[in-house]
């Protein structure tokens, strides 16, 4: 990440025009509030001439006069002072009490949580304005005391929200991870929990500032906030009500003032929230269709397209040709390609491993095959054939049928992939019911069979359990059962074992291998770990920085890799390292997509790099064992696995 979070937030915020307008408006309100005595043409309270009652706007009284002849424009300017002061007071009180309290009880839970939540519930059980009134009855009337009361009431809302967010954050794996890693409680709260709570707090704080301004207006409207000598906007509305049977006008400027200030706070807060969000926008179920791109004689780097790797699959279930995926780059109008012209074949009953480090574009390749590229992404391909059907530009509904029946998917995080609100049985049965039109009873019976097939003990009783009642390995088996429900021809397994405990990783891989053999099902196994594929795959496609750099049969690729990157991956398999040595890694990281060079993408990390490697784009060409995207493939004698891969 080249920019700091703060810079990114600032950059996004300044690009948000609405938020900036809100911010500028607030600045104006603040300036008017500060300079009210200088700016106001008339006094805050004194009527200039007693008989000038309920005047319409004029050059002397810009916004007219109220029912006792006071200048509305001048009172409006002084009103800004009361509004901002009151809002700030209430919010500061609310945050000062609510955030520490919420963090504390959310983190420690137990009896502290129980006691505080009873108090919170007591206060929240009564509407805020009513509770504020009860506190005011004790404190006495007046703006400062009234807003202190409002702040105390609002702190309960902040406490409850912070606690809920802490609970939610605790559900996420990273907090457990930090605890497991031995971080102290305070450190976990401030380093891991608070940053995730902050966006929600910012949203709530802006709302609360707005609410506080409304509360000030309301209490002053009722006569227990600002005094009669304080030109608060709420007080002005109270006065306006007295003459409502004659004219509505005196209610318009103060009402608009409250309204517009509150709007400004809200839009500014929304802008902040969007700026904090990890993605600038999204969330829409915007899954872009895969666009057709004509098969071109040369690819986008000016290199002739070869028929890649596919030649080895005699009876392909899946053939992908020229698949590219581009995303708009944040902060620019440019698109960045994250996958460039992938060709891929999976034969019938064949297990193909797509291997590469994170950032190489392998997961997005899998999502493209499903037509599920996340929203701003644009996928294009000249062809994606699944068992004779062309998926490119297939309408969403038609593709949905194929997704549920012919392709099954296992994702990386089983708990994230399963819906926490439904039983596992219901989730496994859903495609059966929806795609195959099974009755409830038939779908249940079949679901039990499926759960048994993936090795879940006692499926008859586990079918009604919720995902959180399963271990990670068992939950991933549920996901597998869901993927298998309609008997897919192709199973896509996207890092199926990465999130799992080491002890169950092997079992799950064995399961996938068994299922593939028993069902004669093709598998596209996506992984960063070449070691994972050794027992499972028939063929390997190695991806690096958006390109396939080598393909070939498993044995060949392991025995004599034809690309330096593959050699590096093989060397990084722990079992190939003698016990004394450190685990060798490939130096450096996969470059970000916008940093990809025109020449060989791997050149900067390659120990065999020469001048020739940087002279131009490198094509995927036939090699001794398959295909390779390396100009030195023939001359280099790259090292593979010494002993036989078993």
């Amino acid at each position, binding site marked *: 990440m080249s920019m700091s979070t703060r810079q990114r937030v600032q950059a996004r915020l300044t690009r948000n025009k609405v938020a900036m307008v809100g911010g500028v408006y607030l600045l104006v309100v603040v300036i008017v509030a500060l300079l009210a005595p200088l700016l106001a043409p008339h006094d805050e309270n004194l009527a200039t001439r007693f008989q000038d009652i309920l005047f319409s706007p004029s050059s002397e009284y810009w916004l007219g006069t109220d029912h006792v002849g006071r200048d509305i424009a001048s009172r409006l300017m002084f009103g800004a002072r009361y509004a901002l002061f009151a809002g700030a007071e209430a919010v500061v009180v609310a945050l000062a009490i609510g955030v520490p309290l919420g963090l504390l009880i959310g983190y420690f839970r137990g009896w502290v949580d129980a006691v505080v939540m009873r108090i919170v*519930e007591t206060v929240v*059980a*009564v*509407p*805020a*304005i*009513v509770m504020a009134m*009860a*506190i005011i*009855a*004790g404190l006495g009337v007046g703006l400062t005391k009234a807003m202190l009361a409002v702040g105390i009431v609002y702190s309960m*809302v902040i406490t409850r929200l912070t606690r*809920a967010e802490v609970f939610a954050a605790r559900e996420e794996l990273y907090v457990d991870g930090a605890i497991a890693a031995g971080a102290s409680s305070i450190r976990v709260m401030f380093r891991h929990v608070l940053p995730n709570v902050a966006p929600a707090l910012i949203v709530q704080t802006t*709302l609360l500032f*707005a609410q506080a301004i*409304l509360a000030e*207006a*309301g209490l002053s*409207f*009722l*006569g*227990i906030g600002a005094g009669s000598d304080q030109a608060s906007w*709420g007080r002005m*509305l109270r006065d*306006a009500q007295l003459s*409502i*049977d004659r004219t*509505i006008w005196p*209610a318009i400027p103060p009402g608009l003032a*409250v*309204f517009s200030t509150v*709007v400004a706070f*809200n*839009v500014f807060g*929304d802008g902040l929230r969007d700026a904090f969000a990890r993605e600038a*926008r*999204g*969330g*829409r*179920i*915007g*899954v872009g269709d895969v666009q057709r791109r004509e098969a071109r004689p040369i690819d986008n780097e000016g290199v002739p397209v070869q028929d890649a790797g596919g030649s080895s699959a005699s009876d392909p279930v899946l053939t992908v040709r020229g698949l590219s995926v581009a995303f708009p780059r944040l902060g620019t109008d440019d698109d960045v390609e994250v996958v460039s012209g992938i060709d891929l074949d999976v034969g019938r009953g064949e297990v193909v491993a797509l291997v590469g480090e994170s950032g190489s574009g392998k997961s997005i390749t899998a999502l493209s095959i*499903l037509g*599920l590229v996340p929203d701003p992404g644009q996928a294009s391909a000249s062809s994606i054939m699944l068992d004779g059907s062309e998926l490119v530009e297939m309408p969403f509904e038609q593709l*949905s049928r194929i*997704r*549920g029946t012919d*392709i099954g998917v296992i*994702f990386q*995080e089983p708990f*994230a992939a*399963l*819906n*926490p*609100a439904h039983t596992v049985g219901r989730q496994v049965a*859903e*495609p059966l019911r*929806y795609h195959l039109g099974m009755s409830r009873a038939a779908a249940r019976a079949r679901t039990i069979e499926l759960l048994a097939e993936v090795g879940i003990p006692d499926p008859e009783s586990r079918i009604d359990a*919720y995902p*959180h009642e399963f271990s990670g390995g068992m939950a991933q088996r549920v996901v597998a059962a869901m993927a298998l429900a309609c008997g897919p021809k192709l199973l896509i397994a996207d890092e199926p074992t990465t999130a799992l405990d080491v002890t169950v990783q092997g079992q799950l891989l064995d399961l996938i291998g068994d299922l593939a053999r028993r069902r004669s099902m093709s598998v596209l196994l996506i992984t960063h770990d070449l070691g994972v594929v050794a027992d499972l795959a028939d063929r390997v496609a190695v991806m690096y920085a958006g390109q396939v750099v080598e393909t070939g049969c498993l044995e060949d690729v392991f025995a004599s890799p034809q690309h330096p990157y593959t050699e590096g991956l093989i060397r990084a398999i722990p079992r190939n390292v003698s016990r004394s040595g450190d685990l060798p890694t490939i130096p450096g990281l996969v470059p970000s997509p916008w940093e990809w060079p025109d020449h060989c993408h791997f050149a900067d990390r390659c120990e065999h790099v020469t001048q020739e490697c940087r002279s131009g784009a490198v094509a995927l060409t036939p090699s001794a064992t398959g295909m390779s995207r390396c100009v030195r493939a023939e001359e280099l004698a790259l090292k593979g696995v010494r002993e036989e891969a078993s």
Partner: protein
Amino acid sequence: MLRLLVGRLAAAVPLMFAVATLVFFLAQANSSDPAGSILGLDATEDAIDAKRAELGIDQPLLSQYGDWLVDAVQGDLGTNWFTGEEITTELFDRIPVTLGLAFGGLLLAVVIGCSLGVLAALKAGRWQDRVITVIASLGIAMPSFWIALLLAYYFAIELRWLPAVWPPGGPDGIGEWVEALVLPSVALGVAASAAIARQTRSAMIGVLQRDYVRTALAKGLPVRRVVGRHAIRNAAIPVVTLIGFQVAALLGGSLFVELIFNIPGLGSYGVDAIFRGNVPALLGFVMVIAFVVVLVNIALDLSYAWLNPKVRVRG
């Protein structure tokens, strides 16, 4: 589920007790002398003392508290100092009016807020989303009493379409009830609709980014089913929380709206009690409001258990 309900009801008892205690002593901190204000300026010392004894406020505070609590548990909230009527009776006469008003506002808010919020989330970043977001941002910023003033002026005083004040003797028949409650309910419901729309949108956007939504799509379910079965239920949890707040906010807002439209509900009763230092009436008012809010929250707690199975397990 039944155990949860019983548990929540049991938990409501100490909660109501806590509210009663808190508000009783807060209200007593008011130092003004009710006997003097009831009898007027020319009352004699003896008359005031007699009145104080009659009201029971010459007793020590704790004994007043004990007496009040014992009566309150039996449903007797005391006698109104100013009208001499039973406070329980007075409040029960007013409950239907305020509940009708709050229900009108809530109905409006939930229907409009949830639909707009879901629509905005599904169209996130497109024009529909922008329009809804703008409307919600404007709606949330409107003080209910300002809307009430504007509605009263334009639709009642100017256009004379709907009554500006409560019909004398109360509304007669469904038609008059609806007529009398339309403007106040709208005034109450605008801000709540906007708040619910915002929360629904933000919750839906969060849920739509979750992996299980992707899983549901990968299962080949159509978007409508993915939204209906997999997204809305998970997105509903924060929305339900907000609705809980909104019920309290609506009851609080009824204070203003009832005042402006001259509606004889709980809100105007409470405001009147506060201004006159009518402590038992204020206490009764707060207890009834708290009771309604507690009941609503128990209903919402039960809905959490339905929405989030993890809660059900923790019980």
